[in-house]
């Protein structure tokens, strides 16, 4: 590797390129082993004093070739792999994949399965946002929210564990529906969590929303306006904080979302503070969806009519869901055999991360940490 930064490394070659940049600019390396990069992200920053004038992301440290693996596994065998992309929101990944294959096959999950899927996916959204809030606040210097957030997340993970035996890489859903029937107390556990959760969000807000340091560190930082957000293809809370009221759950409903009432929070300024407010409100809305869903879980089968060997007819499908981080899309091409011909995963984190350069220009190094946190990336999904 012969980029400008590597010449700074001990034993590096003569420092040729940096002199070209001029005396005022230096190149600073961040990551890949850095606590605030949320994984193995490496960012090369071009600095003028402490101001960022340019940056470049170096990714791929966690690249496992998931899309290649998919071509060598049957449709069912590949399902657990998708849990390992966004490993803090495995349930959402699984939902997207299962629904995409169902669409490719022309089958639908039964109503009961769809409602249970919706409940678990919304709990997962809360868990993912909680983890984001805790670590994002920690990056900026607020230590306390992390403990509160992980305490609540633990309750959700316990529900997952009771449901399918796993906490993180759950593989909770199957193509065509569910493998496991809901355990007896799923509704009660979900309700207990949801009833108490609203007050918990108030607690986070009490800690942060009007905290002067928090406001100072996030307001006006990493602004992305609506036009740029659309041009850069960002999705999820990042897009909504820029004022675009778009959520796939509403625009193209899947699972059982068309049955429930919820609103899509949006921000005005598209800065880090607005993204924080949008995600907090999203947690409240997810709680609302869960409460509506547990009131009426239809009875009936949990697995649709799918054979043990899946052979979707030749053709292709693109199916996207609103994952906690944005639009998670699966583009699957079938050639009529038991293995997918091609699986392309459209990861929200990758595309959102692409906007980082634009968002941090002109800010200070310390703000880079805030902006990486606010994008809510997971490197397992960026690199796949």
């Amino acid at each position, binding site marked *: 590797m012969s980029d400008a930064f590597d010449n700074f490394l001990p034993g590096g070659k003569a420092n040729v390129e940096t002199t070209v940049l001029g005396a005022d600019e230096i190149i600073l390396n961040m990551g890949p082993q850095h606590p605030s990069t949320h994984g193995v992200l490496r960012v090369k920053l071009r600095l003028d004093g402490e101001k960022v004038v340019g940056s470049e992301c170096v990714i791929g440290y966690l690249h496992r070739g998931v899309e290649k693996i998919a071509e060598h596994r049957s449709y069912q065998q590949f399902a657990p792999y998708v849990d390992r992309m966004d490993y803090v929101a495995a349930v959402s990944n699984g939902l997207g994949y299962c629904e995409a294959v169902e669409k490719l096959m022309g089958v639908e999950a039964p109503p009961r399965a769809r409602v249970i899927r919706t409940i678990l996916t919304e709990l997962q959204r809360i868990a993912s946002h909680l983890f984001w809030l805790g670590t994002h606040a920690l990056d900026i210097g607020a230590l306390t929210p992390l403990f509160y957030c992980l305490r609540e997340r633990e309750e959700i993970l316990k529900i997952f564990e009771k449901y399918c035996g796993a906490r993180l890489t759950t593989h909770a859903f199957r193509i065509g529906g569910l493998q496991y029937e809901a355990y007896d107390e799923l509704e009660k556990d979900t309700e207990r969590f949801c009833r108490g959760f609203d007050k918990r969000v108030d607690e986070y807000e009490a800690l942060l929303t009007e905290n002067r340091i928090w406001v100072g560190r996030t307001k006006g930082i990493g602004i992305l306006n609506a036009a740029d957000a659309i041009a850069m293809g960002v999705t999820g809370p990042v897009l909504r904080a820029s004022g675009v009221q778009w959520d796939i759950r509403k625009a193209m409903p899947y699972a059982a979302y068309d049955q429930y009432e919820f609103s899509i929070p949006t921000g005005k300024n598209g800065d880090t503070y607005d993204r924080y407010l949008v995600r907090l409100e999203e947690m409240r809305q997810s709680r609302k969806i869960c409460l509506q869903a547990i009131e009426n879980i239809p009875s009936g089968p949990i697995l649709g009519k799918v054979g043990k060997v899946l052979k979707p007819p030749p*053709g292709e499908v693109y199916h996207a869901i609103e994952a906690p981080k944005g639009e998670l899309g699966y583009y699957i091409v079938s050639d009529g055999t038991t293995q997918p011909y091609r699986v392309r995963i459209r990861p929200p984190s990758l595309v959102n991360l692409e906007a980082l350069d634009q968002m941090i220009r002109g800010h200070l190094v310390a703000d880079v940490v805030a902006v990486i946190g606010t994008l809510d990336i997971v490197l397992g999904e960026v690199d796949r």
Partner: protein
Amino acid sequence: MTDSEEKQPTRPPQADKPGETPAAPSGAAPEKPQAGGEEKPAAPAPPAPAKPATPAAPAASGAVPPKPPAPGAPAAAKPAGPPPPPKEPPLKPAPLENDLVKRYKARFGGAILEAWLDRKQAILVTTPDRLLEIAQYTRDEEKFDYLVDLTAVDWPKREKRFDLVLILYSFPKNERLRIKVLLADGEPVSSVESVWPTANWLEREIYDMFGIVFEGHSNLKRLLLPEEWQGYPLRKDYDILQQDEDWIRENLGIESGQ
């Protein structure tokens, strides 16, 4: 959706441009059965393909010859009333001939090779030579302002080996559209980065995984793999256990990464 429409300062309403006039008279009614009406909550199911027997085999069966869709298709594109409840979902790709396709064909003629509907999702097949023009038109006139994804599929037995796939979404219309570009190995294709900036990384990933070269890309280098890596892993002739042995020996100091 009106909300999102209002908040897009870069896209002033251009409906009264001369280029759009042919579509204007029929604009209101066929809005629903237009391309990519998939998953619309309220919309009726897109045109049920009345003649599913059309032999418009998709990319799956080798070479895709540049043939116009069957002449009988236009009737299928405009259902008279509410379509009958689809007992069997249209899994077979069917040719698509609606206003959107007609507009593209009128404008780009031979560059639009085919159009079909697969699992209710609209696909437009084009040649690479006018891709940039088509992209510009798609964003500005057809309002597909969001490039969801850009990817490729390798069909090694085909004469034109690659499908370059642009998955698009329109915020004003709440529709998806897929544009497929047929590419031979080594055939250059223009980058759409100038139209949708998000294509920057996505094209780098395609270059990385398939070796497709994008002309006019601002920074075309590998995205995920190391810069010096040899080979393109997502090509079908790259074995799943294959790796760049030389790179691994040199950089990791081990014989094999497996």
